[in-house]
């Protein structure tokens, strides 16, 4: 025969467990509703616009045969944020290099993962692995890529003086065996060297 006080204790515990379960379920549903509400209230873009008002930008496009950069004007749609503008700018540059017969071809899978603008005057370009892994090896080819990215960014995003280039979020020794990516590029020095 089970003692009466033991039965009352077990029954009370069961009631408490069931009540807590119901309460937790309610809390979870409420938190999810709050997340949805915040997401709906956030007006910032999650991706660059594919259409809409365009702006004129200057892209510094590499030409392997001439061994130089050529300034080229382009009309591209740009988002409002400084960081997103920088990313869209370099993606527009990459699209030129990924066209068939480009004067400085890059791999179709090459992409800019993100760009971080760090005040004062510093930018970090994060490339994806395919960008570096599938890049042609050679001093001229690699240096033109670096110069093209840095000069395009510095010309269109005012105030950038120093640029670092990462690959998949990490420092990489060289782009494809030659151009040194471990150091910080000094924009005025690089622009001056490119103009000589």
């Amino acid at each position, binding site marked *: 025969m089970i003692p009466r006080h033991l039965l009352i204790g077990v029954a009370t515990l069961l009631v408490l467990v069931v009540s807590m379960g119901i309460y937790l379920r309610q809390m979870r549903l409420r938190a999810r509703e709050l997340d949805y509400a915040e997401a709906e209230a956030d007006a910032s873009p999650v991706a660059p616009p594919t259409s809409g008002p365009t702006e004129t930008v200057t892209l510094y496009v590499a030409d392997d045969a001439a061994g130089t950069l050529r300034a080229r004007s382009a009309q591209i749609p740009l988002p409002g944020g400084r960081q997103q503008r920088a990313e869209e700018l370099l993606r527009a540059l990459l699209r030129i290099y990924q066209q068939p017969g480009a004067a400085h071809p890059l791999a179709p899978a090459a992409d800019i993962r993100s760009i971080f603008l760090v005040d004062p005057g510093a930018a970090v370009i994060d490339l994806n692995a395919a960008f570096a892994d599938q890049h042609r090896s050679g001093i001229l080819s690699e240096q033109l890529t670096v110069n093209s990215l840095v000069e395009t960014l510095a010309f269109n995003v005012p105030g950038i003086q120093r640029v670092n280039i990462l690959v998949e979020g990490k420092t990489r020794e060289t782009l494809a065996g030659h151009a040194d990516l471990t150091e910080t*590029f000094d924009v005025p020095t690089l622009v001056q060297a490119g103009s000589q």
Partner: protein
Amino acid sequence: MRWSKREQFPVLSSQFSVGSRVLSDVLRAGLREILRTENWELRTGSCLAILLAAVIFLSAAAPDEDKHISVFSPVANYTLPVLERSGHEYVGLLELLEPLGRVTSHASGRQWTLRYNKVDAEFVAGRTRARIGGRDFDFTAPFVIENSRGLVPLSSLSGFLPRFLGTSVTYRESARRLFVGEVGIQVSFQLEATNPPRLNLNFSGPVNPTISTEPGKLRMVFKRDPVVSPGSASISFDDKIITQANYTEGNGEAELDVAASEPLLATFSNDRKTIVISAVEQSAAVSAGTTSQNPGQTPNSGAAAANPGADAFSGNNTGNNNASPNATVHRILAVVDPAHGGEERGAALTDKLAEKDVTLGFGRLLRHELEIRGFAVALLREGDTTSNLDQRASAANVAHAGVYISLHAVSQGTGAHVYTALLPVEGTSKGTFHAWNAAQAPALPISHLVATAIVAEFQKRQFPARDSSASLRPLNNVFMPAVAVELAPGAGGVGDLTSANYQQRAAAAIADAVFSVRDRFGVQLGAQLGAQSGVRP
């Protein structure tokens, strides 16, 4: 600045023969005294002491002769070091064949295989029998493997090389001169009984000897020209002033000496196929003698001054690519760095050809071209070895080189690109130590000068070339003038990159350019050594 052992110990070398005589006298006297004594313990101890002293003296004082073999072929003329193993003279087979065609090798234990163009060969260390082109060949001494390098005895060269090269090979063993095909340059003599007399040396091809004068003699050393014996080792002339010409050859070089009772002057003509030797008039001779008193000038420069306007030999003529290396009093060390190597292959120039292989062959040719212009050269890698960028920079910095040249190759584009350092945002300098990432900063103006000179020399040779800046390590880590040369194919396509002829032209252009600005290296280096306390990674 690096000096050879012979230069480091000139007094020791010159005193060797005197020392030998002294040693033999001491030995004779000592042995006499020992033989007189009847104490056997003293006799044995004294003998051992004398023996030990003799061994120490000989090992310390024996001159270390730099032995070389010179190879002359239609595509390249070059010099290789000779190694002595077990009483036989050896040379590296890969190094021997590399300038002549496409060659690869592989070492596995005692087995060593080599492929030259389409000829395969197998060698076994310690054995005299090898298999070359599907047939056996017996060397005169066992095959040697050292640090993955295959060494073959010199005395077997004329026997087995035709199997690789498919052409006749003549090896002059006593002179260590190897002729591939019919490349020999003949010389003939013609004495004109003018006043003063003139001796015309007519060569069957252009020549570029090192010329020096000694009392009663004008000496021409042919280091890179396949000049062969005129038939007789000594030719006498029926003249009171120019009396005799002697031909000798040894250690890879040929030498022609013209004996005379008066000072001689040598001038080139006929596209360097003729050397005219004439007696210097007394007034000019006095002038030449006076000029040679100036420090830094040689008697030859005085002789050249006696005949202005002529293409005469001048030891201090920066504009003359054929100036004598002997005229450079201080040898400047040039560091040549064949980029990549080992596991780091560099660019894939073709499916099978890696950048590291092209840069190594190119580096060897550049070393040769710089050496014959009087530079001491350190090649940062001799084989397919891995070195990181810090090690390369440290090697150049520790050696206090006068100039650093990094070599690269690429399959796209044409001609050559010459780069100087694109300095990054400078790291923090601590005290008198330079920031490692910007050690190049003080030398950068001279580096630009070197790059400009190299581009100019390339363009003289119809090579498309231009210079620019690149963020290319270790250019920014070395504190001496530093450039990188990226060689691209010529009109012949990617095949040019492995062509010894193409590489030779490029190497000669670089060497001429470096030679033309060499005076700036000493100033730069001296200033840096005075100012710097250290550069560390």
